[in-house]
């Protein structure tokens, strides 16, 4: 039985909405040139190659099934008590192979020494073997390196094979579409094609190989180690992707209607409407962002505490908190876009074509929808792209201040928050922090690079 949490519903609605906007804008004549610029940019397309897997993981983590059979140690499979996402099912092994406590990446032993009782009754001070990580090895000290190497090579080729299986049909289609076979292939090989095929394919190959190696290792090791309670860090990092992307996308849902509606109305009607709207956003803008979010989250927590009984499960409670966080972030961040839209609308309303539409008796809602809205679209697109990465980063900071997502939700912010104390341990436990760092950078950096290209392409002031 599929089951939906509130954020899942909103997430899919948002994705459909954003996808619809994308398709709509691709069909618009006046946006064709900027889009062309984006599609021909190597930077943008390579970023997209990295972003799409992130998105797929987030989607897979948002489709939940209830009552899935989960293999249990010792006994037969048992129906799981909580709904599991497709990602959970795919990573069943990672999710269930819980060690005793910390272990370093790819290690076969626990991180810290402890008393171990030998079979003959003696007790020695050493690091015991892991229950799952590298348990297939008989003599880990001799075999581990060669095993890792062998598996890496295997994963390498598996990844390359998958890539090949995707690439060949794709290239065949491109060639079939364009006709002149030899020239097209030569262009692609030399990196001369208009769509940056070569860079995209190479990025895809690189990605496929990295994923291949990681998957091959993850089948028997803890690739990124385990945390304090022995949970796999790679699994946590992958689960955190959904939280990060959710905050980046859902927040725009709260932002867009407000800023679009208010910005365009203020710019178009001017007069008292403008005064009121300007007053509202100047007031909101004057309150330092973090403080406003903190205040709103505190109030939200208090009211959730009052309606304790309304939440059937902890998961639902954490989910509602995540949704509320997105809404609050949206409510506090719509002012910037609103101001831009107002200024642009002020400019547009005096242009000849709007004046002409007015004189010809086109109704006001129609002018707003058909003549103003499509022409401020580029501002919306740039704002959404730029906000995404800063929102993902903001999540980490907010979680540190304790006003972010629920502590039980997997998120990079929570990972960093716990890892902060681990850095003071002796010996240092660095892998939680390092994986949060890598996974966050892997999402935010391509998002920033893509936003950079989008802005250059769509911002009319940057004609170059």
């Amino acid at each position, binding site marked *: 039985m599929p089951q939906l949490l509130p954020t899942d519903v909103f997430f899919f609605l948002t994705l459909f909405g954003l996808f619809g906007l994308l398709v709509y804008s691709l069909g618009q004549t006046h946006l064709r040139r900027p889009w062309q610029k984006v599609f021909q940019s190597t930077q943008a397309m390579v970023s997209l190659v990295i972003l799409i897997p992130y998105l797929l993981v987030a989607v897979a983590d948002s489709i939940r099934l209830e009552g899935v059979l989960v293999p249990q140690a010792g006994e037969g499979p048992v129906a799981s008590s909580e709904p599991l996402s497709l990602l959970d099912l795919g990573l069943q092994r990672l999710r269930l192979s819980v060690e005793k406590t910390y272990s370093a990446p790819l290690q076969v032993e626990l991180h810290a020494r402890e008393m171990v009782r030998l079979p003959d009754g003696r007790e020695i001070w050493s690091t015991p073997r892991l229950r799952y990580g590298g348990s297939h090895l008989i003599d880990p000290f001799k075999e581990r390196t060669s095993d890792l190497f062998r598996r890496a090579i295997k994963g390498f080729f598996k990844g390359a094979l998958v890539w090949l299986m995707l690439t060949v049909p794709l290239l065949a289609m491109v060639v079939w579409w364009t006709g002149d076979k030899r020239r097209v292939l030569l262009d692609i090989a030399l990196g001369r094609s208009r769509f940056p095929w070569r860079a995209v394919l190479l990025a895809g190959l690189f990605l496929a190989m990295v994923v291949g190696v990681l998957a091959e290792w993850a089948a028997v090791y803890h690739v990124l180690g385990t945390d304090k309670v022995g949970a796999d860090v790679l699994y946590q990092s992958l689960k955190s992707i959904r939280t990060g992307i959710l905050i980046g996308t859902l927040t725009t849902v709260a932002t867009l209607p407000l800023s679009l509606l208010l910005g365009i109305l203020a710019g178009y009607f001017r007069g008292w409407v403008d005064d009121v709207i300007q*007053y*509202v956003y*100047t*007031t*909101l803008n*004057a*309150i*330092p962002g*973090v*403080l*406003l979010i*903190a*205040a*709103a989250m*505190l*109030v939200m*927590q*208090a*009211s959730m*505490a*009052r309606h*304790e009984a309304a939440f059937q499960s902890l998961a639902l409670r954490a989910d509602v908190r995540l949704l509320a966080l997105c809404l609050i972030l949206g409510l506090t961040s719509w002012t910037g876009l609103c101001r831009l839209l107002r200024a642009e609308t002020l400019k547009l309303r005096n242009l000849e074509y709007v004046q002409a539409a007015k004189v010809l008796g086109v109704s006001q809602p129609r002018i707003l929808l058909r003549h103003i809205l499509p022409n401020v679209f580029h501002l919306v697109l740039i704002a959404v792209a730029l906000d995404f*990465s800063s929102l993902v*980063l903001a999540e*980490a*900071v907010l979680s*540190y*201040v*304790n*006003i972010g997502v629920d502590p039980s939700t997997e998120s990079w912010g929570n990972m*960093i928050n716990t*890892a*902060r104390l681990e*850095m*003071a341990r002796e010996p*240092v436990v660095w892998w939680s*922090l390092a994986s949060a*760092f890598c996974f*966050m*950078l892997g999402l*935010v*950096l391509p*998002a*920033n*690079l893509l936003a*950079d290209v989008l802005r250059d392409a769509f911002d009319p002031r940057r004609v170059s």
Partner: protein
Amino acid sequence: MSAYLLRRLLTTVPLLIGINLLTFVLFFVINSPEDMARMHLGQKHVTQEGIAKWTHERGYDLPLFYNGKAEGLEVLTKTIFVEKSLGLFLFRFGHSDAGRDIGADIRQRMGPSLAIAVPSLIVGLLMDISLALLLVFFRLTYLEVWGAALCIMLMSISTLFYIIGGQFLVGKCLQWVPISGYDSGLEAIRFIVLPVLIGTLAGVGSGVRWYRTLFLEEIEQDYVRTARAKGLSEAKVLTVHVLKNAMIPILTGVVVVLPLLFTGSLLTESFFAIPGLGSYTIDAINQQDFAIVRAMVFLGSFLYILGLLLTDISYMLVDPRVRLQD
């Protein structure tokens, strides 16, 4: 000029009223004092008497706007709105939920906040501007391409990593300076160096990008071509002419944050255990002390509005082209 200033001053009044009302609605209407009490006293084992005692001790048991039980003018003044919200206008912050005098705390904690924030601002500004000038000087070369890419890279890393990494590397591994803490007087310098450095590094990505666009916009202007035509070296054109003309947007960006330096940086202060207003706010959020958060929201907004005012004034002083009379 004074008429303009007066008008600007008057426009801030409705803003302040709006902020005051917003915080009032947020903290007392949406969220009743009883919720606060329940949250503080813990979810379970809460008695009605416990809640009543808690709200009474903190003066939260008054009616919101109209007190029917009082006499005379007190009908209006003995209310939450007047006692808790209107006092903010006079910087009467009252007592925190834990019973401390917020006004005294704020005065005492402003110093350390400034000691971190001012050097951070100055060092960061110098660093950002000089690096941006360097990038513009080498524009259309590989250095610029990679420099810009590096900026995006630095921007994509969370501030938390800079702080944690910096503390670990400089404080723990190299042991050049103490990891965290604060001291009064000149001794404080030892504690200030690291936060300032890390703050600069964390801001350098977005800062350099921002100033670079400013300079690139200026460099298209006619006066730059004139300067080149009369034989000035590119370095001189950039440092003398471009920098001078880009001063106005730079100034706008800086002046508006000046008053906010008082409230300090939440993250830096909390990580480095600096007893400033930033860590004060974080502690208040963690302890769910509504009174302090309310005071800080108002103080922060007030300082921001002050910054906007200062920006206008600095415009007037710096740019003779700005005609403010109309």
